[in-house]
């Protein structure tokens, strides 16, 4: 996933960390490949995991443009994820209590509009406040959203959730019939069992296609705006908001824009989730989702777009890995508790030993084409070896 970084040069130009990350990613890919080829990992499940990783990458990209670019402590990631999922679900599902059955494309639009409204609803009052107030207020308002979804059964089915969500490509020409049209394949893999690639596999493949489009689109958009003068103002706000104000920047407006932008990307993740899982429930709005995404962003490197993608992938490994670990015989632990402790430890250890994350942004960010020769990279990365010293 990190390979889509447009800036990454050949191996020789990478920093030690980048080489390390690449090695880990390659090793991990090899393990997965081995799993696939030996028949231990069902191809459909593998694709499902890739889909989840893409989803977390999206969420991290969204949060990164709020916290990483601008320094906004948004603890309502789950609310935007949930509103995206519910927006898509309620518009398209057969069991929708509102007005279901629409084409998923409409669901996407509804979800994005709903997320914008929610972002303005949360952002307008809180973005004028101190950074830590935003943290508390956004967590509180996310809880309000969760309560509303849980209690307003007329609109949301309450804790029954919404079932009967179609796949994203249902009703599209060609793509809607693609999974059935493709003949099933049986492949004898070199390391043992035969692998069957049937309709579910192709359905999942379409999902992966969808999330790839979302991730790549968001990634390109966010990388571009990050290195623009607009992104530069955001980064100034993160470092010293008063300075940005003194230099004539309307910081409230910039913060609101970044907040809405990030929220839209998170809602996109929600839309994808609804069509991946085909069922949404108020559990999607649990605050724990918010903090998974926080871990992903801090781990990847605050403010680093490729780091956010990397962090998203690691979080999925962590989530699914704890499930596997707790499933093993002889380990008397339940997965949720273990996950909580691991997430907690990861946050604490990162803040202690590597607050700048694994892949901090290191390159000068000036609008492309303006600087012809790539600037000499500073001896140390711009953020390398330095605490995240904002207070």
């Amino acid at each position: 996933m990190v390979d889509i970084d447009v800036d990454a040069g050949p191996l020789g130009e990478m920093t030690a960390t980048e080489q390390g990350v690449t090695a880990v990613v390659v090793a991990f890919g090899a393990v997965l490949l081995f799993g696939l080829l030996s028949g231990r990992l069902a191809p459909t499940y593998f694709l499902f995991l890739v889909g989840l990783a893409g989803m977390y990458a999206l969420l991290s990209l969204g949060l990164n443009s709020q916290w990483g670019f601008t320094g906004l402590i948004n603890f309502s990631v789950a609310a935007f994820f949930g509103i995206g999922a519910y927006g898509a679900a309620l518009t398209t599902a057969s069991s929708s209590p509102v007005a279901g059955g629409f084409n998923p494309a409409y669901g996407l639009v509804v979800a994005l509009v709903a997320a914008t409204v929610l972002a303005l609803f949360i952002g307008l009052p809180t973005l004028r406040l101190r950074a830590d107030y935003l943290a508390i207020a956004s967590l509180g308002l996310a809880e309000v959203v969760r309560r509303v979804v849980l209690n307003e059964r007329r609109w949301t089915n309450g804790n029954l959730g919404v079932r009967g969500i179609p796949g994203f490509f249902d009703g599209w020409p060609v793509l809607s019939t693609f999974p059935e049209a493709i003949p099933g394949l049986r492949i004898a893999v070199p390391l043992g069992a035969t692998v069957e690639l049937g309709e579910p596999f192709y359905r999942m493949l379409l999902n992966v296609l969808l999330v790839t489009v979302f991730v790549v689109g968001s990634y390109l958009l966010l990388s571009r705006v990050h290195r623009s003068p607009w992104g530069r103002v955001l980064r100034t706000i993160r470092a010293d908001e008063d300075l940005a104000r003194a230099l004539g920047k309307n910081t409230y407006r910039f913060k609101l824009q970044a907040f809405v932008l990030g929220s839209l990307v998170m809602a996109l993740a929600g839309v994808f989730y609804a069509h991946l899982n085909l069922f949404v429930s108020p559990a999607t709005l649990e605050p724990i989702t918010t903090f998974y995404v926080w871990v992903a962003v801090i781990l990847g490197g605050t403010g680093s777009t490729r780091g956010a993608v990397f962090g998203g992938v690691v979080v999925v490994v962590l989530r699914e890995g704890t499930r596997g670990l707790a499933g093993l015989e002889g380990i008397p632990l339940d997965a949720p508790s273990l996950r909580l402790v691991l997430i907690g430890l990861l946050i604490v250890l990162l803040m202690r030993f590597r607050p700048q994350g694994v892949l901090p942004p290191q390159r000068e960010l000036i609008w492309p084409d303006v600087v012809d020769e790539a600037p000499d990279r500073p001896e140390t990365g711009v953020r390398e070896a330095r605490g995240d010293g904002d207070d």
Partner: protein
Amino acid sequence: MTDTVLRVENLRKEFGGLVAADDATFGVERGTITALIGPNGAGKSTIFNLVSGFYEPDAGRVEVDGVDVTGLEPYEVADHGLIRTFQTPRKLEGMTVREAMLVGPQDQPGESFLRLFTAPGAVAAAEERNLADAERMLERFEIDHLATQPATDISGGQTKLVELARAMLAEPEILLLDEPAAGVNPTLRNELVAQIRRLNEAGTTCLLIEHDMEFVMELADPVVVLDRGSVLTQGPPETVQGDDRVIEAYLGGGA
């Protein structure tokens, strides 16, 4: 015929019963380097924050170039041509020096999210121009060798020079300097004096707060003396220096 760039009238600000600015009135004439001095707690920083829009005054009026800017947001005050610096600027993490410089220019098309996509050509052109300006400005301040250094890796004094250079990219009518010499080593301090004088000779009006009296006497004329939130006296540095009330204020109010 005088030409007042900044006019402060009867400015007043209280914090929980404590009067920080009390009917302060003074003006800054175009082309001068005016200094605002006074003992600790005299209200210098409060006045700066009131003038630049960071605090809202309880009463009084601030005019920049004849336009009433009282109660406006800092960015609006900046739009009217008043740019301020900070006593201890925080370093712009993750940026190189020239990137940090590029925050200075006003009204950049690339600062509008929409125009990044509707007018990428204009954004690139402006960026190119601004980068050239920034590098020229760094040269003028004789810190162009720092251009691609991380902004977090330069010394405190160099940070002050960068801040000054960046403020100039905003093409201010009047520049407010908050303790420019604080925490700067003697060599760079002389450098700062020279640079501020050069800016002034090139037509920039300055208002500065400074504790370093030598620095003030070297640069400023006139000097405005604050005591307990109001203006005690003002005039040429020599006159102010010899004023008994000023000496008394410093002796009485100083810690």
